[in-house]
């Protein structure tokens, strides 16, 4: 009998993710219809098209570059979330780790005048320490990592605002431009910008983030450490019984997750694509979108590359809606609906599996009755 491709768990994840995306976009469209039916179809298409909205080919390539520049940090945040989730930890603190990473690289670049490599390493180190706090609290004090993560998100935000006030522009709440004040700290581009119509923000951050996704994949699936970490995630007590250091594994996981998210912060701010606003009153959404990307990608690092791009694609696309009628937050709405739907992924897989099982049972029953009839006929003749 031919093997049903629906039984493959990768195919199931893909179907579930596509279903989440389609339903998410549909709900987004309905919301637009409710607000103002006149331009809803155009606006939702504009969100989906993103950079394809521009009429000139060279601009399109440039805007694709802009989307990719923000995809790299998002991918890092989603890797951070998914890596921790594989070990049974929900790293909502990725947002805070992203913040302290951004803060560390900016202060290293503008305050200490370090070059890009040291800025990046400094951000990674600070993020790792920040992640370790959550890990230590979880391992030794049994503190729920979600709640401690949220607390650290806010502490990180206030601390970053306070520290970066030292290197901000005198007349605005934004930090100084790296291009003019600390050009040594900008990530090298190795000529990549030529591919994107001289988009100066395109740097090695983009290939590096993809490389790290592959590294994480190999580490989780093909190494002893990855196996131990996943075992700890599946059953902490069983892992402990099998002689794995479950406390060490929890802390190590959050150290790595923190480092990944902080690297995301460095990948964004060391390109000078954005400036940090020292008066922001809410934690940047990058870390939270990372959660969306991690789950939409089926908790697979390679899937995360695609899903991060998709989330960033519609987030950037939000700017193209008809702003006289709608607000650009419509894309935040769509991505949060997608995460909500990701909660149902297990149910979708269960539905697919039980559907297949039912059909196979029916077929088996049918074959059986067919067989009986044939032998019956044979008996008559």
């Amino acid at each position: 009998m031919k093997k049903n491709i629906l039984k493959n768990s990768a195919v199931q994840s893909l179907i579930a993710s596509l279903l989440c995306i389609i339903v998410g976009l549909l709900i987004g469209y309905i919301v637009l219809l409710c607000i103002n039916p006149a331009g809803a179809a155009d606006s939702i298409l504009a969100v989906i098209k993103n950079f394809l909205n521009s009429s000139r080919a060279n601009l399109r390539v440039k805007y694709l570059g802009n989307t990719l520049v923000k995809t790299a940090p998002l991918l890092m945040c989603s890797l951070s979330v998914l890596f921790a989730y594989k070990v049974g930890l929900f790293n909502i603190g990725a947002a805070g780790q992203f913040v302290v990473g951004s803060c560390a690289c900016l202060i290293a670049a503008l305050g200490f005048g370090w070059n890009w490599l040291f800025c990046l390493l400094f951000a990674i180190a600070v993020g790792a320490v920040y992640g370790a706090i959550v890990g230590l609290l979880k391992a030794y004090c049994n503190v729920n990592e979600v709640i401690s993560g949220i607390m650290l998100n806010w502490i990180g935000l206030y601390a970053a605002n306070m520290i970066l006030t030292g290197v901000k522009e005198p007349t605005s709440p934004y930090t100084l431009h790296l291009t003019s004040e600390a050009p040594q700290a900008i990530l090298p581009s190795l000529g990549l910008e030529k591919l994107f119509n001289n988009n100066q923000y395109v740097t090695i951050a983009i290939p590096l983030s993809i490389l790290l996704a592959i590294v994480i994949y190999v580490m989780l699936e093909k190494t002893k450490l990855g196996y131990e970490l996943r075992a700890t995630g599946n059953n902490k007590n069983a892992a402990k019984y099998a002689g794995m250091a479950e406390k060490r594994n929890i802390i190590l996981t959050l150290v790595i997750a923190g480092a990944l998210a902080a690297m995301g912060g460095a990948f964004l701010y060391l390109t000078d694509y954005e400036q940090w606003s020292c008066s922001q009153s809410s934690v940047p959404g990058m870390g939270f979108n990372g959660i969306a990307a991690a789950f939409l990608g089926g908790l697979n690092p390679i899937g995360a590359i695609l899903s991060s791009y998709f989330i960033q694609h519609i987030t950037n696309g939000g700017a193209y809606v008809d702003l006289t009628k709608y607000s650009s937050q419509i894309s935040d709405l769509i991505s949060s609906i997608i995460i909500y739907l990701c909660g149902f992924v297990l149910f979708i897989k269960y539905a697919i599996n039980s559907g297949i099982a039912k059909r196979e049972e029916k077929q088996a029953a049918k074959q059986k009755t067919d067989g009986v009839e044939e032998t019956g006929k044979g008996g008559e003749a």
Partner: protein
Amino acid sequence: MLLLLQYTLVFASVLLLVALGGCFSEHSGIINLGLEGIMVLGSLGGALVMRFFSGLPAVIMVFAVLLGAIAFGMAYSCLLGVASINFKADQTIVGTAMNMLATAAATVFVKAMNTAANPNDVSSSIQYIEPKKAFLLRFGGFEFNWFMLVAVVGLVVAYIVLYKTKFGLRLMACGEHPQAADSVGINVYKMRWAGVLISGVYGGLGGICYIMVSASEWKFEDGVAGFGFLALAVMIFGQWKPTRIALTALLFGLFRALASVYSGIGFLAALNIPSTVYNMLPYIVSLLVLALTSKNSRAPKAEGIPYDKGQR
């Protein structure tokens, strides 16, 4: 000093209400990480009432606003109920998604509403300077806020319902050992739905309370600054018991109040500590408190585990 007391009491009211909401939901066995989102929607409900019915007499106004907040909070908590009870979804993901969804949805909605009223207005805020006065009573230097009373009533109701009624004891049984509860004829799904909906009521009330004590105009893009999670910390420190939650809420309320009024208190202002430190204080304190108390946590045993009738 009177000002500090007043702010402590109002912030404690917010934390108490939301933490009691979390308490009901967790006692029924559902971890409600979406409290933050429920607060946002509850505050939206109350704010809409104040915007569209601003001419009501003071007493009716108070009740209308509370009802608006309750209705929105309850309706929004259904998202958690459907996903985590009927579809057995991961409660952590759903709760997190609800928090993000609430801010995004409220922002989109309020912006659409403002733009429809005035095409040049693209802000995401609703202002309620006039209706807010219905909630305040002045006693000399002390400003009494009706929400303080709401919080006390909420506390008494929660205590009686949880410990003195059949319903409350059954609800708690579903969070401790749902299979055992089911075996004696309690409908676990219904009880969990009840827990989630009640947490929606309390969360919604806490949300409207939060925005009304913080400002006279609310920008919905900002959400509620992690208060839903602070309330969860209060709940854990309060060991899921209403009376202990109330005392913890007062302590946390004090730290939050310091951020608002420290400049008016002589010796604190003289210390010259940057205001950011005071803003961070509630979060730092809650981390420390959690570190000290989580080890011997008395959390409901079956919380976070979807109930499946087939698994006995």
